[in-house]
C-alpha cells in the first residue's frame, strides 16, 4: 500500500516523458498532458481517500529505513495539497489547449507543465529536507522555462527578476540545510523534529529557523520579500499566470507550515511572533498594492500577496483551529485564484486589454461570464456563503481565541479592501458601458475556456455550500500538524 505515495509522481513523470517524445506533434502532446493530469487527479483522489481518516502513509525509497534513506510521507495535509495541485494542473492544461500558441507547444510547453506539477507534488510528499530542496529546484527550473517561453521584452524581464530572486532563495535554503545538518547530523524531517527538540535552546537553531523563514518567505512572497511577484506574474500568458498564481507561492507556504510545525517548534514565542507580524504586513501591503492598480492581472497578483498573509497568519497563531483555517484558506485560495486568472484571460480576449479603463460592458454582452466572475471574486472577498467566508471565519475566530485583536482588526480591514478592489474590477469591466475601444470582432472564447472556469467555479460553490466535510478534513490535517508525534512515529516506526 505504501507504494501509493509515489503514484502521483510516477504518473507525472510518465506523462512528461511521453509528451516529450512527441515534441513535434502538438495534438498528441495535448492529449498526453490531459490524460496525465486526469490520471493525477485519480491518483491524488486515491491517496486522499487512504489518508482521509488520519492514517499517515510512508514510503521508504529503496527500502532504506528512515532516517538513512529518502522518505516519502503522505499525511492528510500533503494529500490535500497534492489533490489541489492535480485539480489546478488539470484546469490549467485544459485552458492551455484552447489558448497556447504553436510556438510554445513546439518548445515543450506541455512536458514542462507536467514537470512543474511533478516538482510541486514531490515537494508536498517528501519527508526529507534536502529532497525538498531538490523538488523545489525541479519545479523552479520548469517554471523558469515556462515563464521565459515565447519571448517578448516584458516577459524576458519578468522572467529575469523571477529567476534571480528565486535563486537567492534557493541559496539561503541550501545554507539552512547545511547548518541544520551540521548541528543535528540528519536530514529526515521526522528525525530532525526530535533532534532539534533535544538540541540546546540557544540562538543557533533560531538563526537557522530564520534562514528557512527568509528562504521560504521569498518563495511564498511574504512581506518584505514579495517584489518579484508583481514584477513577473502578469507578463506570462493567462494559463501560465493562473497555474503559477494558484500553485507556486503555496508551495512556499506549505514548506513554511511544514518546517514551523514539525521542526522549529522549540522557540515558538520568538519565531511565530515574527511570522505573525510579517503576516499582517503581508496582508496589508498586498491589498494596498491591489487597490492602487488598474490592471486586472496586476490587481490579482497583489491579491496573491495579501492572501499569503492570511495563510501564514494561521501558522503564526499556532492553534489547531488557526492551522485548520490556514489549510482551508490554501484550498479555497488555490481554486479561486487560478480561476480569476483564467477569467482575466477571457476578459482580455473579449475586451482586448487588461486595463480597466479600456474595458466595459461585459455584463451585457457576456452575462454568463459575469456570473462566473462573480463567484470566485466574491468568494475571495469572503462573502458568505462562498468558500472564502469559512476560511476567514476560522482565522478570525482563532485570532480572537488567542487574544490577537490587532491582527484580527487587520484581517477584517484587509477583507474590506479586498471586496473594494474586486468590486472595482466587477464594476469597471462588467457593469460600466463599453468604452468602444474593444476589438471589432473579439475572438470568442470556447469550450476550453469555459470548461475549466466553470469547473473551478462549481468547486468554489461546493467548498462554500458544503463546507462541513472539507472543514473537518482541514481540522484533522491541522491536528496531525499540531501533534508531530504521529508523523514521527509513522516515519521512524514505533518510538523507542
Amino acid at each position: 500500500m505504501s507504494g501509493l505515495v509515489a503514484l502521483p509522481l510516477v504518473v507525472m513523470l510518465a506523462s512528461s516523458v511521453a509528451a516529450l517524445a512527441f515534441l513535434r506533434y502538438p495534438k498528441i502532446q495535448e492529449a498526453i498532458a490531459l490524460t496525465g493530469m486526469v490520471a493525477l487527479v485519480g491518483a491524488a483522489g486515491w491517496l486522499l481517500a487512504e489518508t482521509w481518516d488520519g492514517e499517515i502513509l510512508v514510503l521508504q525509497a529503496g527500502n532504506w529505513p528512515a532516517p538513512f534513506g529518502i522518505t516519502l510521507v503522505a499525511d492528510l495535509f500533503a494529500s490535500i495539497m497534492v489533490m489541489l495541485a492535480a485539480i489546478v494542473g488539470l484546469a490549467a492544461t485544459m485552458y492551455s489547449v484552447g489558448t497556447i500558441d504553436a510556438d510554445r507547444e513546439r518548445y515543450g510547453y506541455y512536458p514542462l507543465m507536467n514537470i512543474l506539477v511533478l516538482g510541486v507534488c514531490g515537494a508536498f510528499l517528501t519527508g526529507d529536507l534536502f529532497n525538498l530542496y531538490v523538488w523545489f529546484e525541479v519545479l523552479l527550473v520548469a517554471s523558469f522555462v515556462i515563464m521565459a517561453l515565447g519571448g517578448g521584452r516584458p516577459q524576458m524581464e519578468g522572467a529575469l527578476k523571477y529567476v534571480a530572486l528565486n535563486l537567492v532563495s534557493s541559496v539561503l535554503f541550501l545554507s539552512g540545510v547545511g547548518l541544520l545538518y551540521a548541528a543535528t547530523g540528519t536530514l529526515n524531517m521526522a528525525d530532525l523534529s526530535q533532534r532539534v527538540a533535544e538540541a540546546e535552546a540557544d540562538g543557533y537553531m533560531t538563526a537557522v529557523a530564520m534562514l528557512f523563514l527568509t528562504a521560504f518567505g521569498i518563495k511564498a512572497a511574504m512581506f518584505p520579500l514579495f517584489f518579484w511577484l508583481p514584477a513577473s506574474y502578469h507578463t506570462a500568458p493567462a494559463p501560465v499566470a493562473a497555474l503559477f498564481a494558484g500553485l507556486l507561492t503555496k508551495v512556499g507556504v506549505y514548506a513554511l507550515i511544514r518546517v514551523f510545525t514539525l521542526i522549529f517548534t522549540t522557540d515558538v514565542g520568538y519565531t511565530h511572533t515574527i511570522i505573525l507580524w510579517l503576516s499582517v504586513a503581508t496582508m496589508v501591503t498586498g491589498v494596498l498594492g491591489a487597490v492602487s492598480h488598474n490592471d486586472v492581472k496586476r490587481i490579482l497578483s497583489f491579491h496573491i500577496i495579501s492572501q499569503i498573509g492570511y495563510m501564514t497568519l494561521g501558522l503564526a497563531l499556532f492553534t489547531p483551529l488557526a492551522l485548520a483555517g490556514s489549510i482551508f484558506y490554501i484550498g479555497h485560495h488555490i481554486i479561486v485564484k487560478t480561476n480569476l486568472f483564467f477569467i482575466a484571460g477571457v476578459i482580455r480576449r473579449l475586451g482586448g486589454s487588461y486595463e480597466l479603463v479600456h474595458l466595459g460592458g461585459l455584463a451585457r454582452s457576456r452575462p454568463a461570464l459575469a456570473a462566473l466572475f462573480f463567484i470566485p471574486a466574491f468568494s475571495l472577498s469572503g462573502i458568505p456563503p462562498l468558500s472564502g467566508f469559512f476560511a476567514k471565519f476560522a482565522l478570525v475566530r482563532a485570532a480572537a481565541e488567542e487574544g490577537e485583536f490587532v491582527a484580527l482588526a487587520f484581517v477584517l480591514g484587509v477583507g474590506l479592501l479586498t471586496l473594494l478592489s474586486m468590486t472595482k474590477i466587477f464594476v469597471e469591466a462588467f457593469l460600466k458601458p463599453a468604452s468602444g475601444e474593444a476589438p471589432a470582432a473579439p475572438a470568442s472564447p470556447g469550450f476550453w475556456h469555459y470548461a475549466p472556469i466553470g469547473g473551478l467555479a462549481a468547486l468554489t460553490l461546493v467548498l462554500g455550500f458544503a463546507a462541513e466535510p472539507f472543514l473537518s478534513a482541514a481540522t484533522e490535517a491541522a491536528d496531525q500538524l499540531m501533534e508531530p508525534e504521529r508523523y514521527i512515529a509513522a516515519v521512524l516506526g514505533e518510538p523507542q
Partner: protein
Amino acid sequence: MELLLALTVGILYAAGLYLLLRRSLVKVIVGLALLTNGANLLIFTAAGLVRGRPPLVEAGENVPQAPFADPVPQALILTAIVIGFGLQAFAMALAYRVYRESGSEDVDSLRTTEDPSISLPKVEAAE
C-alpha cells in the same frame, strides 16, 4: 583549516551579495554563482572536516572505523553543484536574451514590467 574555510565562505557570501546589488546584469549572475559556491563550501565546512579518512569499510567489517569523513555532505554538495551549474547556465542564457531584447544590461533600465502609470525617479545612465 576550519577557520580558513569559514573565512572563505564569508568572503564568497559577502562578494556574492555585493555583486547582486550591482546594476550590471552580468555582475548579478556572477554574484549568484559566488553565492551558490559559498553555500556548497558552507555545507562542507559546517559538517566537519576529516582529513585523509575516506569512509571505506575494511574487509570483514560492517562499518568504517572512526574517525571517518561523513559522506552525506559530500553527496549533498555534489547534487547542489549539478543543480547550481544548470541554473547558472539557464540564467546566463536568459540574461543574454534580455540583453538582446532590451539592448541594455543595466538592471535599472529593465522597467517594462512596472506599471507605466506609476512614475519612477529618473535614473542616471550607468557610467
